[in-house]
């Protein structure tokens, strides 16, 4: 077959003249792409424009000030941002070992049949709507925290100097810790899926050589697989973080929704997304309050944009 041209036939059609139907088809699908592009573009621009009034009114103070007072019409992003960052941090901190352990177990330890079933179950967990997580957290985790975890911690650790300021407060059950827990179980399946793919992509020869030298499974995992797939793991963490940043309904149910900043992880707080969800219906069109909420949305948009870019950069895929 060597006499056949090596170049595929469907190529370099740009140089040729296309038939009319082809041109129309191209315009059709390219305009679809342009619409998708313009939707995101206008999403960013519109949130920014809507937030103009707040940015203009409060200036840079808007980003750091811890005040949210509809009565005196003073708004600042401090409290919701604090809540968003801390709850996301707790969520990722808990989800990381969960996801890593599960991915390790699924790829290297579990028998194939069990691994398939458990893998499916974990995937299903990520398909559960977020409001269901909210209800589940509100009716299961919140009472559990209020009745058992918090009194226990208060009783035993109240006088420990390093810890007492983290756990003080009345046992409401709602708060940053509860939100972090619920976020963790929401993003863990997602992170597990990515880590599983990354672990499976490690060349089998590397594992085999390590096993051949007498490594245990954990040796292979920690000294071969993890260094090899480090960027992928970090990418999974960042993507999970992005999810946790913008999670709304589940967090709204369990965080308690008090705009405040403080050390205690068990006190009610609020996040950007939960604040928008709760305060939006009471904010009249054109008010400073609505503009401030849009400003929060704008910054949240930037945050999730940055995390996604970071994840892609770390994964190193530009496909």
């Amino acid at each position, binding site marked *: 077959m060597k006499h056949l041209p090596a170049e*595929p036939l*469907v190529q370099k059609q740009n140089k040729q003249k296309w038939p009319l139907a082809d041109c*129309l088809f*191209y315009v059709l*699908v*390219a305009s*679809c*792409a342009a*619409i*998708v*592009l313009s*939707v995101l573009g*206008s*999403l960013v621009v519109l949130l920014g424009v*809507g937030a103009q009034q707040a940015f203009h009114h409060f200036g840079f103070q808007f980003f750091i000030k811890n005040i949210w007072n509809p009565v005196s019409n003073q708004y600042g992003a401090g409290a919701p941002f604090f809540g968003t960052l801390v709850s996301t941090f707790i969520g990722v901190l808990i989800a990381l*070992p*969960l*996801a*890593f*352990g599960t991915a*390790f*177990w699924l790829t290297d*330890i579990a028998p194939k049949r069990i691994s398939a079933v458990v893998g*499916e*179950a*974990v*995937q*299903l967990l990520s*398909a*559960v*709507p*977020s*409001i*269901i997580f909210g*209800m*589940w957290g*509100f*009716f299961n985790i919140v009472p559990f925290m209020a009745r058992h975890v918090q009194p226990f911690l208060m009783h035993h650790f109240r006088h420990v100097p390093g810890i007492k300021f983290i756990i003080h407060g009345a046992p409401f059950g709602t708060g940053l810790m509860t939100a972090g827990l619920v976020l963790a*179980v929401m993003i*863990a*399946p997602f992170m597990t899926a990515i880590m599983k793919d990354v672990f499976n992509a490690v060349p089998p020869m590397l594992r085999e050589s390590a096993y051949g030298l*007498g490594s245990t*499974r954990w*040796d292979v995992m920690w000294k071969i697989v993890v260094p090899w797939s480090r960027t992928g793991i970090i990418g999974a963490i960042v993507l999970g973080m992005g999810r946790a940043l*913008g*999670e*709304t*309904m589940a967090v709204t*149910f369990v965080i308690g929704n008090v705009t405040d900043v403080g050390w205690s992880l068990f006190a009610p707080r609020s996040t950007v997304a939960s604040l*928008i969800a709760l305060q*939006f219906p009471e904010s009249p*069109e054109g008010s400073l309050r609505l503009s401030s909420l*849009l400003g929060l949305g704008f910054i*949240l*948009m930037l945050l*999730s944009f940055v995390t*996604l870019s970071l994840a*892609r950069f770390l994964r190193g895929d*530009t*496909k």
Partner: protein
Amino acid sequence: MSNGKVYSGWQTDRYGARRRCIDRLVTGLSLIAASCLVLVLASILWTLLSKGLSGLTFAAVSKSMGPPGSGGGFANAIIGSVIQTALALVMATPLGMGCGIYLSEYGSKRNHFALIVRFVSDVLMSVPSILVGLFVYEVWVAPVGHFSAFSGSVALAILAVPIIVRTTEDMLRLVPLALREAGAALGAARWKVTLSICLRSAKAGIVTGVLLALARVSGETAPLLFTSLGNQNWSLNLNKPMASLPMTIYQYAGASYEDWVQLAWAAALFVTLGVLTINIVVRFSARRG
């Protein structure tokens, strides 16, 4: 080593014993991690079943919402959810498929526009859904002056599009070049090759993507807060607020009336079973196909 009788050096010396110890410990811990996630799923399903099953009566799925104590159901919310998600998919599927076709058929590595669009659709996939709600509110609801079911569908469509784009592109890329060349060799125009050869052979995968988008979108609450709002009554008017299951759950779960909370659980069970069923069907058929 398989028969357990062969002892190589590392298994007997102290360092080897330590490593084996750590290995067992970590194996145990990872088993705990995996069982934690499975337990969470089991706990969610158990909670939903134990609290929602008794409320999932014929009255609940056949009557519309009503004042507390009236024995109402959430039939109007079911209808509303079906209408809004269906409308969202009707808008999102052609747009997403078009964009996916563009990316796979014309988006080479040198095409900067395609690179940007691909990145943007990835960004759209991870935009917090509440921001999509805010966006549609600003573009549609605020200028028009009232909440409407149609704006809710638009918000859901924006969430569904990137999923459809991604699966369409991935599936079209799997179509072998030889198949395209065969079509071109028969004298088919390029659009004809794309539509009747590539799309046809990638059909199963694209349908999977659309179904996954459906599953994702039908449980969304946050974007509907600001767009279709929810409605206590029967409403089939796309230009008016319309009820939907997630909004009903949101409104009823925090209520102080026993029967409303009961209805919220029943609706939550209904939605979750629906979403999980779609996912299971998709996974099952994807593995067989």
